[in-house]
């Protein structure tokens, strides 16, 4: 396995775990007392992952909010400016392919790995086509301990934590399907054909930013 592949593998594992970790809700069950938090829907994982991996799309979504909510403008202005000042759209970008229902990447391996190290639990129902639906991901107490204990000591992971917090702040309440709808409004995203990478939209962002803030990114 090449370094690049390895890096990808570890990155994916971390990102997916962090999404589950930060975007899950408290949970308690007598059947599985070790599960402390729950995350529903794979689609939601995919959509949040897309926002982490494409800072330009995140900036776009933020600008949509800024357009509608005056009160959040100056905050969002700062955020978007920061995203671009740090060259995030180039540095942090990890392209995703378009699937039937938008950005999608197979995360089964990651989920199984996380399961094997007792970080998460997983449940699902089968529909009439024997497809897994209503996927639920449970965070174990062990995972929460481990994360709190060591993850904060790793400075390079700080960006992910902050980013998750940011996304949670603005989009945490949205379901996967809602996120999907808003992403579909973006022309570039919408027009990307099946199995192709979804292109960047920095130019659109810059234009919109200028429109809203009368300032160049």
């Amino acid at each position, binding site marked *: 396995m090449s*370094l690049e592949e*390895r890096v990808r593998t570890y*990155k994916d594992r971390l990102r997916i775990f962090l999404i589950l970790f930060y975007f899950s809700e408290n949970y308690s069950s007598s059947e599985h007392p070790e599960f402390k938090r729950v995350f529903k829907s794979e689609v939601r994982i995919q959509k949040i992952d897309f926002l982490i991996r494409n800072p330009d799309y995140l900036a776009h979504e933020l600008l949509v909010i800024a357009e509608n909510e005056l009160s959040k403008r100056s905050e969002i202005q700062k955020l978007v400016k920061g995203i671009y000042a740090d*060259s995030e759209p180039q*540095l942090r970008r990890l392209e995703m392919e378009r699937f039937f229902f938008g950005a999608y990447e197979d995360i089964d391996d990651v989920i199984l790995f996380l399961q094997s*190290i007792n970080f998460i639990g997983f449940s699902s129902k089968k529909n009439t086509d024997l497809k897994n639906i209503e996927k639920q991901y449970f965070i174990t107490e062990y995972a929460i301990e481990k994360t709190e204990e060591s993850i904060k000591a790793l400075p*390079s*992971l700080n960006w992910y934590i902050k980013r998750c917090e940011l996304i949670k702040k603005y989009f945490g309440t949205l379901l996967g399907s809602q996120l999907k709808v808003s992403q579909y409004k973006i022309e570039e995203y919408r027009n990307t054909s099946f199995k192709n990478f979804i292109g960047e939209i920095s130019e659109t962002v810059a234009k919109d930013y200028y429109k809203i803030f009368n300032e160049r990114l």
Partner: protein
Amino acid sequence: MNFNYNNFISEIHKDFAEDFHQSEIKSLLDLGTELDKDTPLSTGKRLEVNYIAFSGKKVTEEKQEYSDQLINYSQEIYSGVNMWIADNLRGKSSIFKIIKFGLTGDDSLKPNISKWLQHILLVFSINEKKYSVYINKEKKPIQASFYNKEIRIYPADDEHLDDRLFLATSKDELQRQLKDFFFHQFDYYSLRWTQKSPVKESDDLIEAGASWLTYFKSIFLESKDTNELMYGAQGTKVFQMLLGLYLTSSINKLTVGKDKLLHQKGKQQSFLSRESTEKQSKKTELQRELTDLDQQLEELAIAEKQTSNVNALVLEYEGLVKDIDEENTKRVAVNNSLQEARKNKDIIDRRKQFIDDEIRRLRKEAIKTEKQYSDVKEYLEIGVFFSNLEVKTCPSCSHPVSKDKKTKAASAHTCALCTDDISKDEPEVDTGNLESKLVELEKLKESLENGIGELESEYLMVQSKSVEYYNDIIKREQQYGGLRDVKEINSRLNELQNAISEERKKFASSNETKTEMLNKKAVLNFRISQLNEEPEPIGDQKIEKKIQLFTKAIASLNKIRYDEGQTVLRKLADLMTAEAQSLGLRITEININDRFDIKYKQDGDFLSFSEIAEGEQLRAKLAFYLSLIQLDIEYNYGRHSRFLMIDSPGKEEGDKNYLEGLSRLIKELESRFGDSLQILIGTAERSLENTVKNQNVFPAQSFVF
């Protein structure tokens, strides 16, 4: 003969080395075959007339006693002296002229007598060989046949065809054929001379040559030629031919050449002098025209002064033209500097673009490096995080993966979950390597940033330069825009032009005249100046030298011929002296000089032929021809045909001594040379009767035919 042509040329060259190369002299004095043409040795041939016959009818316009009488004359003629004795005007001369006609083709008969004749037959021989000439005058213009044998009866057209040497149907052809025949027989050739063209107004020189007829004058001594020894200008040519001295043809050729050169020189000179006279009179005429013209121009200038208010307009016009010129110069200068500034800006902008592109490229590179850097760093941390975690549950069956199981798997180098062999897998994270890779990437990042920094500062510099050029361009464009508008000046110019041309129209006619006069003046001056120029040398510049060369060569050849010919000439002179004395002349000595002039010593003086008393000239002449024949017979020199026709030798010389001398001479000739020559004598002198045995005596007042 001892003559070396090359030595001769070398000798001549000595005197003309400055002017001619030896090869040039050789080509000028080229003698070719001429050198071998002459020999004084006799051919040993003699011409003898054997028989003459002619017929016809005496047709006259006015009735005469002999009108319509038929002519039918025939006569045997013998070797030695044959004499026709008849009264004057009774046909003796006609007999000789008919013989001449037969031998030369030249009909010199009186036209009325010639008309009478219808058939002429002449038999003659050269040595023993017999020939016949038959002239049929009934056929027009003429028909003459020449036969290789003796014919005594007028032949019909188809007779003796095998022996016919030629058939001539014109007198010219007959003459040409006979000339060829006799020239060949007696080794004669055509000695040449030059004469003026018979065409009026032509100053050309044409070349003529002696014909058989010319040489025949040494055979037929006519009474009318008595006071000339050698028949006019060509006499000495005949004499030279008869003597056949070495180099005669060569000298003749060079003499003709010299004559031509003299003529050419004359033409050149006359052209020059004519040209000079024409020039002088032309010049006078042109000068007069020029003076007239100057006067007219002066008058015109005075008239012009009174009417010139165009000058102010012209001055303004010229001023404006100058202004336009200046404006145009400025315009060109500003435009050039503007172009220059644009070019500079273009160059700097291209540089700017290049830097910009390069910065972009480096930034991309830097981002890539940065991304790699943070990926590796992240990997190290995440890797540590996850590798500290252990597999606890099988994600497939959810069974716990026990410590014991894991220990066993580790010792067996297999996966604790799938039991695959992992002995050959690389250790997952080689932190040492990655740390050093991070250092490398850090360095690369730094150098890229430095590069970008440098480019950015150059970019700033270039940009400010570009701005500078831009400002410069703006400044020049403003300057250009600020230039004076020449349209305005141009329209004023047009106005002025119109005004001027209006003004000028008023004086157009006088101006035209003036231009015309000035042109004419220029032409006159040019022509006068041309006339003042020395004439170009024309013609052959070396002609004088060439003439000198020919003169020298001729004199030199003449001397050689004369020296070489002394034996022959001395013998001839002695023979002539003896003959003259036997004819009763008081001549004591005869000299022949190198120009073939014959001087007769009489009473202590050397006289020329024309200086001898008239009554003695015929005898001197006879002495001359008889001596030529004797020279041949006795010494085998010369080329005389040994045939003479002497018409009326006693006509003007009633001198008793002469007649006695002549009679004695004839008798002596008959006895001494009767077998070697033939002389036909026609005379009215009855005292010469019975001098020779072959005589045809016609009674007083009777016709010969």
